[in-house]
Structure formats: structure tokens, C-alpha cells
């Protein structure tokens, strides 16, 4: 009997989804999860908006709470101009949040664990906020790289540093989310694999002992729930901060 090995990375393997049609257009299993996330959002809003009650029911309260949470985040961090960016931030927030949370279900694919997915969103935020900066301030937006109140002779040193730190924004933004989600899922898989290995090698004693990795996995799920919400929040709030920099230049 070959000893089972832990294959923690195969869970991130992309396959095609939606049957032969999906295969024809390279529609992947991660895109399937994205569609499910969009469907959940649409259904939640459809139910929440159906009654339009003055005193909201549960689902309407949930939808309103999300709305007010993200709206507050936009207005608090960007200022009054944040209302224009609110749909964008909301889209990013719920998309990442649902991706993170859905990924925690067994056999579900966590699309936020793909570096290309997070990099696409981070690059979009980066390019968009830079575009907003140039759109609002014109070429004066370049002064963003010149810190206020710094002696002139230090500028040749500081401006490149500012510029590099600005350029590193999409990298840190994408890698933070990707690494958090990947690490969480790898750990869950590893501890689950321990249970199989223990049972395979130690028999009945191993089956009893695998209660330890099981307990660890239960704790990890709680941690991953926190991480899932936190990373969605971090991504959204950093988006807000970058937009704030673009709008206010400081």
C-alpha cells in the first residue's frame, strides 16, 4: 500500500467549468465561483429590495448594513468625493468577501487565492486611482511624489523612494490577499491530510489521534473566517486610501 502524501496545492488547479460550453471558451472553475458570488449578491439584493419596507426585515437589514458599512468607509476615507467611487468600492468589497467566504466550503474553489485574479483587481485599482489623480489634478498630480517641507537637496533621494513605494502598491495589494488565502487553504489541506496519514500509518490508534488535527482544523476555520472578512476589508479600505491620495494628493 502506497503511503498517502499531502497534496496541498492541487486544490488551486484550474479546470474548465460549465461543461462542454465552458471548455470551448476556457471558462474555468474559478469563474464558476465568481458567477455563484454574483448570483448570491443579486439574489440578496433582489430579496432585500423586494419589500422596500420602512422598518426593514432581516435580509433588508443585511443589505442595508452592507450598504451603510461600505458607504461609511468610502465617505470617511475619501471624503465627500467618495460617493462617486462607492459603487466601485462596493463591487470590489463584496466580490472579494464572497470569494473568500465561498472558498471556505469544501470542494469550492477560492478564486481570491489566484495571483492573477488578485493582481488584476489590484492593478485595476492602481491604474484607476492614478487615472483619477491625473484626471483631477492634471500634471500637478506628479507633485504627489514630492513630499512637503523637505529640503531641496534631499529631493533626488526622496522622490525615487516615493515613486517606488507608489509602484509597489499593486504588488502588496495583490500579494497580501493572494498569500493570505493560499496559506489558509494550504494549512487546512495539510491538517486534513495529517488525519489521513495518521489513519493510514497507525491504524485505529491513528484514527483516534487524528482528533488533534481535526480540532486544529476547526480552529483554523474560525481563523480563516476572520481572515476572509478582514482581507476583503483591507483590500477595500486600501482602495479607499489610494483613491483618497488621488483625490486629495496628501
Amino acid at each position: 500500500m502506497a503511503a498517502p502524501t499531502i497534496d496541498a496545492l492541487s486544490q488551486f488547479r484550474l479546470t474548465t467549468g460549465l461543461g462542454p460550453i465552458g471548455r470551448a471558451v476556457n471558462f474555468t472553475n474559478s469563474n464558476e465561483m465568481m458567477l455563484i458570488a454574483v448570483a448570491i449578491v443579486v439574489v440578496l439584493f433582489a430579496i432585500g429590495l423586494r419589500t422596500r419596507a420602512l422598518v426593514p426585515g432581516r435580509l433588508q437589514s443585511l443589505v442595508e448594513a452592507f450598504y451603510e458599512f461600505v458607504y461609511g468607509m468610502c465617505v470617511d476615507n475619501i471624503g465627500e468625493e467618495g460617493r462617486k467611487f462607492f459603487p466601485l468600492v462596493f463591487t470590489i468589497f463584496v466580490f472579494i468577501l464572497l470569494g473568500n467566504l465561498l472558498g471556505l466550503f469544501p470542494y469550492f474553489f477560492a478564486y481570491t487565492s489566484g495571483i492573477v485574479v488578485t493582481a488584476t483587481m489590484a492593478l485595476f485599482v492602481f491604474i484607476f486611482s492614478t487615472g483619477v489623480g491625473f484626471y483631477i489634478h492634471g500634471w500637478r498630480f506628479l507633485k504627489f511624489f514630492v513630499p512637503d517641507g523637505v529640503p531641496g537637496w534631499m529631493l533626488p533621494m526622496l522622490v525615487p523612494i516615493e515613486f517606488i513605494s507608489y509602484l509597489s502598491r499593486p504588488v502588496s495589494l495583490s500579494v497580501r490577499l493572494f498569500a493570505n488565502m493560499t496559506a489558509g487553504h494550504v494549512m487546512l489541506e495539510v491538517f486534513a491530510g495529517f488525519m489521513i496519514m495518521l489513519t493510514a500509518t497507525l491504524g485505529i490508534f491513528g484514527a483516534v489521534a487524528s482528533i488533534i488535527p481535526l480540532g486544529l482544523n476547526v480552529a483554523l476555520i474560525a481563523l480563516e473566517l476572520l481572515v476572509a472578512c478582514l482581507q476583503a476589508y483591507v483590500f477595500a479600505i486600501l482602495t479607499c486610501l489610494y483613491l483618497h491620495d488621488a483625490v486629495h494628493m496628501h
Partner: protein
Amino acid sequence: MRRLLAIASLACGAAIGSLTLSGAAHAASSMPQMDFSNPLNLSQVVWLVIILVVLYFILANWALPGVGAILAERAQRIQTDLDAAHAAKAEADAAVAELQAAIRSAREEATAELARATDAAKADAAHQAEELARTLDERLARAEADIAAARAEAMKAIRPIATETANLLIGRLTGAADEARVGRGIDAALSARGMA
């Protein structure tokens, strides 16, 4: 804003595309996420962009304005109710103030009326007392005059009785009486007693 969104999506799509394609030239990594030779890694980005754009339009044009309208309506309703409550309170306050003013003026009026009535009654009583005193004084004066008259009448009768009595006594004792001396003696006796 819309144009900016579109430009940014296109630019980042192009950037990711070129990054992925350039990565595809390298050897396959052990991590499926880093395996850029897999065409699914690029295609999932294309579908990601399509799905995100659809989600953005659904949220921006239908879902979020709907929730915003509900929240605005609720805020407006609450504001209207608050305003109505404030107006009702102001009205009630005004009514209370009016009531208190009415009570105060009524009390003042009643006090004034009472003072007026008291004054009138006092004046009346004083008048009556004065009247009574005057009639009593009159009666007293009349009675005193009557007494004085009666007394004068009685005084007039004393002298003849005294004269007659003296004459009789003197006649019994000595015989004849001297009329003139008797008259003088009586006058003296009467004036000594203050009865002349």
C-alpha cells in the same frame, strides 16, 4: 468617471495579459496559480473582467440606488416625523403659555374685582355708621334738651315750695313772717346748693 473606469480596466487587462504571456515562456511552477503556461490562467482573467463589469453595472445601476432610495426615504420620513413632533411641541407650548396668561389675567381681574367690592362695602358701611351716629347724636341732643327743660321746670317749682314751707314753719314758730327776709334766705340757700 465611466470613461476612466473603462480605460483603467482596459489598461490593467492589457498589463495582466502581457504579464501572463511573458510568464508562460518560463518553466511551469509547482504552484498552479503561478503556472502561466496554463491557458486557463489567462482565460480566467478575461472572464473575471467580464463578470466584474457585469457585477459593477448591476450594483451601480440597480442594487445600490435601490438601497440608497430606501435609506433616503427612511431618513426623510424620520426627519418629517421629527419636524412634525417639534411643531406639535411648539404648538402645545404656545397653548400652555396662552392658558397660563389667561389664568393670570383672570386672577388679576378677580383680585381687582374683590378689592373693588371690598372698598364699596367698606364705604357703604362707613356711610351707614355715620348716618347712625348722626341720628343717635340728634336723639341724644333732643333727650338732653328734654332733660334740661324738665330740670328747669322742676327748679322753678322748688322756690315757691321752699317759700311756702318756710312761711308755714316761721308762722308756727313765731307768728308772722317777714316776706322779704324769707325770700333773701331762700335765695341764699338755693344759690349755696347751686339750684338758683
